C-alpha cells in the first residue's frame, strides 16, 4: 500500500470521526463543500498523537480565533467569550475525541495504537522533508475548521491487510 493511499485513509477516518463528534456533541453536520479557502495558514489548533510500534502520527484540528471561540462556547454551552485556557481545554477535548475515533476506525488495519495527550499550537504548521501531511477544510456546523494528519514518510504508512 502506498504512503499516499494510507494517508488518505487516515484523513478519511479523521473526517468520519469529526463528523460523528459534530453530530453527537454539537448537534450539527460536518460539511466539506465550500469549506476550502476560508481559513488562513496561521491558525490555532490542537494535535493528539497516535503512537504505534511503527511510529507516531498526529491528528489535528485547527481553526481561526473566532472559530476556536465558537467551538469552545458550544462545548461549554456558553454565550460569553471564554478565556484562552478554556478555549485550549475545549480544543484539546475535541481533538482527543476525534483521535479516539480515528484509533477505533483504524483498529482493524493498523497495529495497536496509544492515544497521547492533547497539545495546543498557534501559527503556521511547517513539516520537514521527512514528514508528510494531509488536510481537509470542513465546516463543523457553521464553523470553519481544518483537519490534519502529520506523520513521517518512512514510518507509520504500512498497513497490514484486514483479516
Amino acid at each position, binding site marked *: 500500500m502506498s504512503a499516499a493511499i494510507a494517508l488518505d485513509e487516515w484523513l478519511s477516518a479523521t473526517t468520519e470521526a469529526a463528523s460523528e463528534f459534530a453530530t453527537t456533541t454539537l448537534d450539527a453536520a460536518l460539511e466539506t463543500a465550500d469549506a476550502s479557502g476560508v481559513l488562513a495558514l496561521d491558525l490555532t489548533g490542537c494535535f493528539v498523537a497516535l503512537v504505534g510500534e511503527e511510529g507516531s502520527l498526529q491528528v489535528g484540528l485547527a481553526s481561526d480565533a473566532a472559530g476556536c471561540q465558537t467551538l469552545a462556547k458550544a*462545548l461549554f454551552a456558553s454565550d460569553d467569550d471564554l478565556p484562552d485556557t*478554556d478555549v485550549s*481545554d*475545549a480544543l484539546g*477535548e475535541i481533538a*482527543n475525541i476525534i483521535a*479516539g475515533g480515528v484509533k*477505533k476506525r483504524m483498529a482493524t488495519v493498523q497495529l495497536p495504537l496509544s*492515544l497521547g*495527550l492533547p497539545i495546543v499550537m498557534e501559527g503556521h504548521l511547517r513539516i520537514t522533508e521527512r514528514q508528510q501531511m494531509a488536510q481537509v477544510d470542513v465546516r463543523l456546523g457553521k464553523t470553519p475548521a481544518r483537519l490534519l494528519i502529520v506523520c513521517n514518510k518512512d514510518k507509520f504508512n504500512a498497513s497490514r491487510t484486514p483479516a
Partner: protein
Amino acid sequence: MKKLLIVDDSKAMRMIVRRALRQANLGEHQVDEATNGEEALQKLRGGPFDLVLADWNMPQMNGIDLLKAVRSEGITVQFGFVTSEGTDDIRNMAMENGAKFLIVKPFTPEALHDALLPLGLA
C-alpha cells in the same frame, strides 16, 4: 439522591458529563469532580460515593490505574469509564478490572442513561 464523582482532566468534558446527566433526567444526583486519578482517589478515600465516571487518558494517574487503586484499597464504589478510547482491547481491560461500563466519546445523554440504569442510578 446518589453521589457521583466525575474524573476528567478536561473542564469542558466535566461540564459535558454534568450536562448529559441533567439531559438524561439524572440531575438530582450530587456530583463532585476530580481532575485526575490521584485527586479522585483522595476524594474516594474521604467518603462514600455511589459511582465514579472516569476518563481513561489523564496526567498523573490515568483511569485504569485509578480503578486498580480503588479495588486494591477495597473501595467498593461502582466504576464506569467515559472515554475516547473505544477499542475492544480497552473495553476488555476495563471490564476485566471491574468496570461496569465504558461509554465512548462522543456520547449522547441516552447512552449515559442506559449505562446507569442497570446500576440503579437512573
